[in-house]
């Protein structure tokens, strides 16, 4: 207790030291007076009295010193002294200090911003209890790719595995929902009843699904997200009156999920899966699966467990072929969610780390130049008895001050930097909502600042205090000899800077070229002036109801054509490049006219005959769709009035399919069976061949596609496409009015096709913009670094240059000397940079398109750019050196 008490007293004593000092002086003074009074009383003369008193009191200053040490905390006092002195030194050259702080702020801020994204997306645990026990379960197809699960396979995983506490499947969908405030297109998940148990959550209101809710023919029930309950339903406490019309059926709202629970991402409603019964096929991969590991079971054990079951299915199933699973696997849910973005994000983090290094190098150079100006001060301090350790500590303190200011400023900047990053981030970047400047991010950036301070401080201190400091005094303040050493250090730093910058700019160049290559790819369709309108009608199975929906779409298309400015209207089941969209794919059969299969079950044996099986994407479109997107007709015809619901069903195939399946033949007139996609077993006669479309992004090859006619093979959800010269907003509101007119309960979602198209390149653009930005900033910093070191060197050598000129050196010689010195540094940097780039750009390989990681053109271009700017930065100081007047230079010092 007393020890603690005195610690606080000592801490308090760090403040108001002057008044405390005065108090002690007063006290000692009064002590003396008492003593003198006593001595006078004993009969001494006043002089004697005073002399004795002073003698007996002893050394007053010594007493004061002991007293002071006891009073405060000497260690902290030295630190405060260092801090005060450091702050004074920094304030003495405000320009240098400001530049150093801003440079550090830039480096630390950018690193903090990128780290906050990396942390939020990759590192932050998912917001579920024991989230590291939650895993995703996949089938593995014969190509070795992970794929979704087929219903019977999921059932086997669930019933036969011993590794899971709970396992659940889920699928995502966007459907029309009405009955709340207004009809909307809403993301829903179809889930098996144990879904919430996997995440260990429970409804905050109402109840969870029970097994009976998922039985075939059960009354439809739905769970809603907290946000949906609040905004769309008006937060009713009693759910018994809450119903939603989802996809045409009435669902009772039975529960509200806790705030923040949105899995899968952006879903608002959870419905029981398979209300219409399970799909018995082992090759229809409709569901994802998540599971919670049983206590004590590792992911590796679960993996073996699932793999064994999957292989058993593979070996015993009657459905063989390319779509039957070959194996199974599990991976942590967090990795499953973020797997695709992991390497691009780590590349970004690496890039920003390089930027930070370049920034630190600039600051190191600034401080080094500062330190050599301070040689005299250091010499005096050292002559007065300051130990080297004390001087080193002084430099460390200053570096700490700088990075603390820089770091704080950087974190402030990172606050809006993160907002910018989130706005700029591609839509497919998962977990963006968990990206923020959180406590771990702040801790990270504090540690980063401290590390920068330690690095910078140690480096400067060791450099500045090496050698015999007292020489600084002998030189009478010119400090040329010592400056030699610091100039060499400066050049090494600049070379390193150039090397790192080269790596960054090469990376940016490679990514930029990839983006350009991607943009040059012909997508196979027109992008501009197209408005897309998603509409989905209730899902129906009855052929008559389906035919009714075809008529509805036909009417809708006719009405949309009337909108002023709209030239063409079409419809398709999924637009190219749509995020998470894409056409479904499957296996079709080559058949002759008289081979009509009776049921889908009879497909099995036919699929074994390799020569009659083909694999293709399945598009459902109208004739207008090809016209709107400008997909060219290559042979035959596209759909027209002849192709009514009752006339023979026809198909149009893509060029690549024609080439692949009917090599050296005319595909027109052949018939195929693709009824496994929509349940209609009527044969399709091929009537035309159209151009290829890059459905899955410009960087993926086009897929062979079979298009069927929407009016012959109706479906309930389509995207309408309108080619229009009119303003998008006018078209949108007119189209909305027409839809409301036809059916007020059906919502629509509008987008321009160019939005979809450019979003498909979002992540590529994100990387290019950020790494390009880092590259440019690094280039500027490195240029400033070269300039700074050269200018400093020239100013330090003014006298020497003066002597050279006086002895007959021409200004050309001087220019060559300075440029030569600069060039050496630059070339060393560039050489190291090229080697480093060759080693590091390999990590970019997966992000590149149409360009090699060692692309000579990029390397050459970047090297030229860097050498050019660096030479320019040398040239300005070199010119100054050229014009040195020997008379002035020699008198100068």
């Amino acid at each position: 207790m007393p020890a603690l008490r005195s610690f606080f007293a000592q801490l308090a004593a760090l403040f108001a030291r002057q008044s405390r000092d005065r108090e002690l002086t007063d006290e000692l003074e009064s002590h003396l007076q008492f003593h003198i009074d006593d001595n006078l009383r004993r009969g001494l003369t006043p002089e004697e009295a005073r002399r004795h008193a002073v003698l007996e009191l002893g050394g007053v200053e010594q007493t004061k010193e002991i007293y002071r040490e006891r009073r405060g905390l000497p260690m902290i006092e030295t630190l405060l002294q260092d801090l005060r002195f450091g702050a004074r030194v920094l304030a003495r050259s405000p320009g240098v200090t400001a530049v150093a702080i801003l440079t550090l702020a830039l480096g630390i801020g950018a690193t903090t911003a990128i780290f906050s994204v990396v942390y939020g997306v990759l590192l932050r645990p998912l917001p579920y209890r024991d989230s590291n026990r939650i895993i995703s379960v996949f089938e593995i197809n014969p190509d070795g790719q992970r794929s979704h699960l087929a219903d019977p396979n999921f059932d086997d995983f669930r019933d036969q595995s011993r590794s899971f506490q709970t396992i659940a499947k889920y699928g995502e969908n966007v459907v029309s929902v009405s009955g709340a405030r207004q009809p909307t297109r809403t993301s829903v998940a179809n889930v098996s009843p144990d879904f919430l148990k996997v995440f260990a959550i429970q409804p905050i209101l109402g109840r969870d699904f029970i097994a009976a809710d998922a039985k075939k023919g059960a009354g439809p029930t739905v769970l809603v997200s907290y946000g949906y309950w609040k905004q769309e339903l008006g937060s009713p406490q009693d759910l018994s009156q809450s119903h939603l019309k989802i996809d045409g059926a009435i669902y009772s709202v039975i529960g509200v999920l806790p705030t923040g629970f949105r899995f899968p991402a952006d879903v608002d409603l959870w419905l029981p899966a398979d209300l219409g019964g399970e799909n018995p096929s082992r090759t229809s991969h409709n569901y994802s699966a998540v599971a919670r590991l049983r206590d004590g079971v590792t992911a590796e054990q679960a993996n073996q467990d699932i793999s064994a079951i999957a292989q058993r299915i593979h070996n015993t199933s009657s459905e063989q072929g390319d779509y039957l699973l070959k194996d199974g696997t599990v991976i942590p849910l967090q990795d499953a969610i973020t797997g695709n973005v992991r390497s691009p994000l780590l590349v970004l983090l690496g890039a920003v780390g390089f930027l930070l290094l370049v920034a630190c190098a600039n600051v190191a150079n600034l401080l080094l130049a500062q330190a050599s100006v301070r040689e005299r001060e250091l010499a005096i301090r050292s002559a007065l008895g300051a130990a080297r350790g004390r001087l080193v500590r002084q430099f460390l303190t200053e570096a700490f001050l700088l990075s603390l200011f820089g770091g704080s400023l950087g974190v402030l900047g990172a606050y809006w930097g993160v907002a910018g990053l989130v706005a700029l981030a591609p839509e497919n970047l998962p977990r963006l909502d968990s990206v923020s400047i959180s406590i771990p991010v702040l801790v990270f950036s504090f540690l980063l600042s401290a590390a920068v301070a330690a690095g910078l401080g140690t480096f400067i201190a060791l450099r500045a205090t090496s050698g015999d400091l007292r020489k600084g005094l002998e030189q009478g303040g010119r400090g040329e000899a010592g400056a030699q050493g610091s100039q060499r250090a400066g050049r090494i730093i600049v070379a390193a800077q150039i090397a790192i910058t080269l790596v960054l700019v090469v990376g940016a160049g490679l990514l930029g070229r990839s983006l350009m290559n991607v943009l040059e790819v012909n997508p196979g369709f027109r992008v501009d002036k197209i408005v897309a309108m998603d509409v989905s009608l209730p899902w129906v199975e009855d052929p008559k109801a389906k035919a009714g929906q075809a008529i509805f779409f036909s009417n809708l298309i006719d009405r949309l054509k009337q909108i002023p400015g709209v030239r063409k209207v079409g419809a398709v089941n999924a637009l190219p490049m749509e995020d998470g969209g894409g056409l479904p794919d499957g296996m079709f059969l080559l058949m002759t006219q008289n081979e009509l299969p009776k049921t889908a079950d009879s497909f099995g044996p036919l699929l074994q005959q390799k020569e009659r099986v083909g694999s293709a994407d399945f598009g459902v479109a109208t004739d207008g769709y090809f016209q709107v997107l400008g997909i060219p007709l290559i042979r035959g015809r596209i759909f027209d009035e002849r192709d009514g619901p009752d006339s023979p069903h026809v198909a149009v195939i893509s060029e690549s399919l024609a080439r692949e399946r009917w090599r050296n033949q005319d595909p027109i007139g052949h018939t195929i069976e693709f009824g496994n996609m929509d349940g209609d077993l009527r044969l399709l006669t091929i009537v035309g061949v159209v151009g290829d479309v890059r459905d899955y992004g410009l960087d993926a090859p086009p897929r062979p596609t079979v298009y069927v006619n929407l009016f012959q093979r109706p479906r309930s959800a389509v995207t309408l496409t309108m080619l229009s010269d009119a303003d998008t907003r006018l078209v949108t509101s007119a189209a909305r009015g027409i839809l409301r007119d036809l059916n007020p309960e059906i919502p629509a979602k509008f987008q321009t096709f160019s939005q979809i198209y450019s979003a498909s390149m979002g992540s590529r653009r994100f990387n290019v913009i950020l790494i390009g930005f880092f590259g440019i900033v690094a280039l500027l910093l490195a240029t400033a670094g070269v300039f700074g070191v050269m200018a400093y060197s020239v100013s330090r050598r003014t006298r020497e240059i003066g002597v050279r000129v006086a002895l007959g050196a021409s200004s050309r010689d001087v220019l060559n000397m300075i440029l030569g010195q600069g060039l050496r540094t630059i070339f060393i940097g560039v050489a190291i940079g090229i080697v480093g780039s060759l080693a590091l750009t390999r990590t970019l390989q997966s992000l590149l398109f149409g360009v090699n990681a060692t692309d000579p053109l990029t390397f050459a271009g970047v090297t030229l750019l860097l050498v050019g700017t660096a030479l320019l930065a040398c040239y300005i100081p070199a010119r100054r050196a050229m014009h040195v007047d020997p008379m002035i230079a020699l008198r100068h010092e």
Partner: protein
Amino acid sequence: MTDKKDVWQGTLALMVLKTLQSMGPLHGYGIARRIEQTSGDLLSVNYGTLYPALLKLEQEGYISSEWGVSDNNRRAKYYKLTRAGRKQLESEAREWEQTTEILARFLSPEQES
């Protein structure tokens, strides 16, 4: 003067506390003089070490200080015992008594026997 003993470390604090207990509030010089007198002028207090010792006691909360005016109208800093100081004095005094008793027992009978 020369054969006077310096106050040895550790006991000064106890003496200060005891002096303040018996004399009431007192200034630094007064404390020093009183200690010397009580010792029958056998001890001399090093005034230089007195003030840091007083500061330490104050920081530990055993004494408190206040500026006041002496009988002959001099301004001086007066120290007085706090409640914690009184307790500390009791326990330390007890310890000293024990120590000296033990030492006495060690020294006297052995010499006789």
